[in-house]
């Protein structure tokens, strides 16, 4: 279980974003986002509440390397979720990225994130996200 870990979902396709968000909530996590753009993702990361992340490579405003850099810098565990091979520049710059190829059932991706966090021994709950909480809206069927 995600034990209230705040998971940032960065994904521009609404269906995939909401599917992932609900899967995170199903697993006991708190959703930060979903964010559709790199700009929005960086703003959410700046709030300092993110404990883990699922990151789509092609966000609406393009390249996600700035986001990857911040995630690496903050030492936040994350999974890159992509339908394409990683851009060569990104691969060359960051080694050891954990990549999950689309399509992949959201529940599997979240389970993978859980084991990643467990492996790092960081499953202690992080402070819950502030007022910004879209999970409430998402929880309604």
């Amino acid at each position, binding site marked *: 279980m995600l034990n209230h870990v705040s998971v940032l979902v960065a994904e*521009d*396709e*609404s*269906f*995939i*974003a*909401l*599917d*992932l968000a*609900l899967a995170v909530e199903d697993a006991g996590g708190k959703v930060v986002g*979903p*964010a*559709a*753009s790199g700009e*929005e993702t960086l703003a959410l990361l700046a709030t300092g509440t993110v404990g883990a992340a699922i990151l789509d490579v092609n966000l*609406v405003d393009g390249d996600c390397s700035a986001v990857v850099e911040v995630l690496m810098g903050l030492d936040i565990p994350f999974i890159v979720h992509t*339908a*394409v091979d990683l851009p060569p520049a990104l691969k060359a710059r960051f080694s050891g990225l954990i990549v999950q*190829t*689309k*399509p*992949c*059932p*959201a529940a599997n991706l979240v389970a993978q994130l859980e084991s990643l966090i467990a492996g790092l021994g960081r499953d202690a709950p992080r402070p819950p996200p502030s007022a910004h909480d879209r999970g409430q*809206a*998402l929880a*309604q*069927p």
Partner: protein
Amino acid sequence: MTEATQFRKNTVAVNEALILSSLRQQELVDVTDALNSKLQREITERKLVEATLHESEERYRALFEMGPVAIYSCHASGVIQDFNRRAAELWGREPALADNNDRFCGSYKMFRPDGRHVPHEQCPMADVLSGAIPEARDVEVHIERPDGTRIAALVNIRPVKNQRGEITGAINSFVDITERKHHEEQQELLLKEMDHRVKNLFAIVGGMVTLSARSAITPKELAATVQGRLGALASAHQLIRPGHSGAEATKPETTLDELIRKVLSPYAGPAGTGDSIRTEIDGPEIAVGAEAATNVALVVHELATNAAKYGALSVPGGRVHISWAVAKGRLALSWEEKDGPVIGGPPEREGFGSVLARRSVSGWLRGDLNFNWNPTGLVVFVSADLERLAL
């Protein structure tokens, strides 16, 4: 001896000498004639041979110069003996003939397809001349011209040998494949893009099915919901299919008007009364890009589905009026339902379709989605960033 006798003798001698001389002269003339006609024959023969040779030479020269193939030949030492016009064109220069400083290849610089530089003394021609390789068949090299432009070429090299089997030179014919490679690369890019889109579409549909299952009560309802959403995606895809205007690949896009009409077409028929049109669409032309189109289609589809279930499109005579305007780089669209059932107020909980539509508008289109549950009918205001709409 008398004088007379002496005179007679002399006369005879002179006569004999004269006869002899005349005979010899005849002989000489005969020999000369024979020699002359032999020479004449030889000259004629040689002229014929020369003419044949010249003709053959001309024929090969024409072949050498005319073809679309670049050709040059090297002596065993590597010095260039001959090259044709096409070779000079592809090299972008004319190398000096029989010059030790211009050996093996007339190009300014040569590279392997992977970009590594190839010194001339290591080029395929040098390898054939040294016997390191027996010949070269369709070897790809990249040639840099003095002006910095580069071309890709396929080279074929065959050695020329003497009767003892020793390599005395080699002939290289090469063709420009720059354009072909460019087409191949374009094709490759297109295939990659298609592959990406298909995988992405599978991911979207996967999410769509899981999400739709969360709110559906019966399998039948689930099937209908998924069909409706797939239909909206398909409408968007149909409108933005690239390449239906000429050979030039342009950025696929559609207009807001076209897209909304397409998505609403299942609902656009005359109302139950038979005389009014159920959907009225009115606004200036706005470009919608390939990626934004699926999001717009989805939003319109969710609003229409909702109207068909609970709103104006659920009763005969109900209508939807959609209009928009543009100001300061933003789109302001309104969706007004009229002549539908009386609205008691906002629903107790927001439907999943609305959550989905809101996500597309706020996330993708950098805008807002506001529902106003007026008693006379639902009015929805949608704002969106024109830049995002064009993506």
